[in-house]
């Protein structure tokens, strides 16, 4: 077995400490023949420090398209020739989406808006929407509304939003190649305010945007420094009309190596399958990732693209004897 896996076993599995950046890079550079041992170690770490439960979440777009930012991966930017048009979801439809999500056994429902940050109209819609969901559905409400002011952080916490998603998307050194309309530091500032408010911090990103393995390791180390409750891992799905529309998808084994590396960097985090797994990993790879460090998933559709039916993922979890985390376990 490679020396890096022995070192990871002692540091992460035995002691519960995450790997540092240089060791994360060594993991990302492991050859294919070491992948089964790597995945087994990442799975052992997940089982020891997180347990067998899998947190299931549904997401919905409250405000789609027309975003003023230029995130190069995103079909919702109003700056690119994307076919995605601007549309708002009404409150009854939002509540219905939350009910559909809860019916899958999911404990999390994340409301997302394609904005730089919320304006008064969006905050009003959130206030009404969160209230209506809490009156009708037994589910935890999370939100992802871009960059926040301190006042908005406080207001979302007061509404009962229990977790806030704001992805750093990639490492600090590569961020200017992905977004030019705002900075990595501005995103970090929002995350700091969210943490101080008492809301749980959800922060991850997208792999396969052209970053090097060194930058992938840098990103994992920076996430470990942030120490979020949840890390959603996306794999780039190239979207027509965006600057990254012609990028190749991440190769399956590279994706699995990355999943394991992020688990070894963040042994206690909720590590969630987010977008792109269907294309990058397929059914078999999805299973391998759940046996290689993943302990949460988004089920059903995404914001502008479609996922596997929730029933297919729930059957997979049952087959793997991984219980869906219950609502009582989230408090």
């Amino acid at each position: 077995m490679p020396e890096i896996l022995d070192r990871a076993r002692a540091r992460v599995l035995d002691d519960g400490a995450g790997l540092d950046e240089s060791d994360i890079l060594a993991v990302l550079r492991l050859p294919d023949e070491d992948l089964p041992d790597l995945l087994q170690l990442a799975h052992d770490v997940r089982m020891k420090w997180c347990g067998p439960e899998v947190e299931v979440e549904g997401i919905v777009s409250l405000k789609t398209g027309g975003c003023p930012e230029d995130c190069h991966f995103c079909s919702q930017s109003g700056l690119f020739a994307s076919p995605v048009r601007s549309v708002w979801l009404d409150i009854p439809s939002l509540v219905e989406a939350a009910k559909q999500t809860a019916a899958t056994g999911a404990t999390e429902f994340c409301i997302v808006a394609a904005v730089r940050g919320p304006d008064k109209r969006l905050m009003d819609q959130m206030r009404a929407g969160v209230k209506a969901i809490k009156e009708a559905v037994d589910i935890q409400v999370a939100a992802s509304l871009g960059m926040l002011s301190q006042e908005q952080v406080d207001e979302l916490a007061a509404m009962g939003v229990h977790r806030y998603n704001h992805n750093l998307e990639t490492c600090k050194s590569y961020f200017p190649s992905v977004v030019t309309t705002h900075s990595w530091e501005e995103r970090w500032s929002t995350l700091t305010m969210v943490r101080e408010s008492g809301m749980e911090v959800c922060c991850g990103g997208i792999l396969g945007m052209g970053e090097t393995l060194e930058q992938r390791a840098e990103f994992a180390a920076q996430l470990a420094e942030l120490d979020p409750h949840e890390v959603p891992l996306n794999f780039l799905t190239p979207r027509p009309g965006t600057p990254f529309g012609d990028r190749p998808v991440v190769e399956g084994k590279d994706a699995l190596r990355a999943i394991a590396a992020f688990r070894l960097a963040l042994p206690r985090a909720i590590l969630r399958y987010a977008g792109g797994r269907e294309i990058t990993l397929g059914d078999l790879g999805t299973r391998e990732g759940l046996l290689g460090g993943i302990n949460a998933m988004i089920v059903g559709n995404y914001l502008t693209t479609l996922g596997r039916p929730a029933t297919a993922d729930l059957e997979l979890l049952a087959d793997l004897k991984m219980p869906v985390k219950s609502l009582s376990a989230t408090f």
Partner: protein
Amino acid sequence: MAYCDRCGEPGSHAACVAARELEPPRYCPDCRRRMKVQVVPTGWTATCVEHGERRG
């Protein structure tokens, strides 16, 4: 279908048909107007101002 509901160009395209397994339609297949599309966890609606709503 006169137009591809993924790219809006005339006809049907194998690559678009494959991609549509994981994407909702974006263009009206009758008039190629861009549709207003709302994706929710268990489905989607796509509305053309001229030809109405489609669901999936």
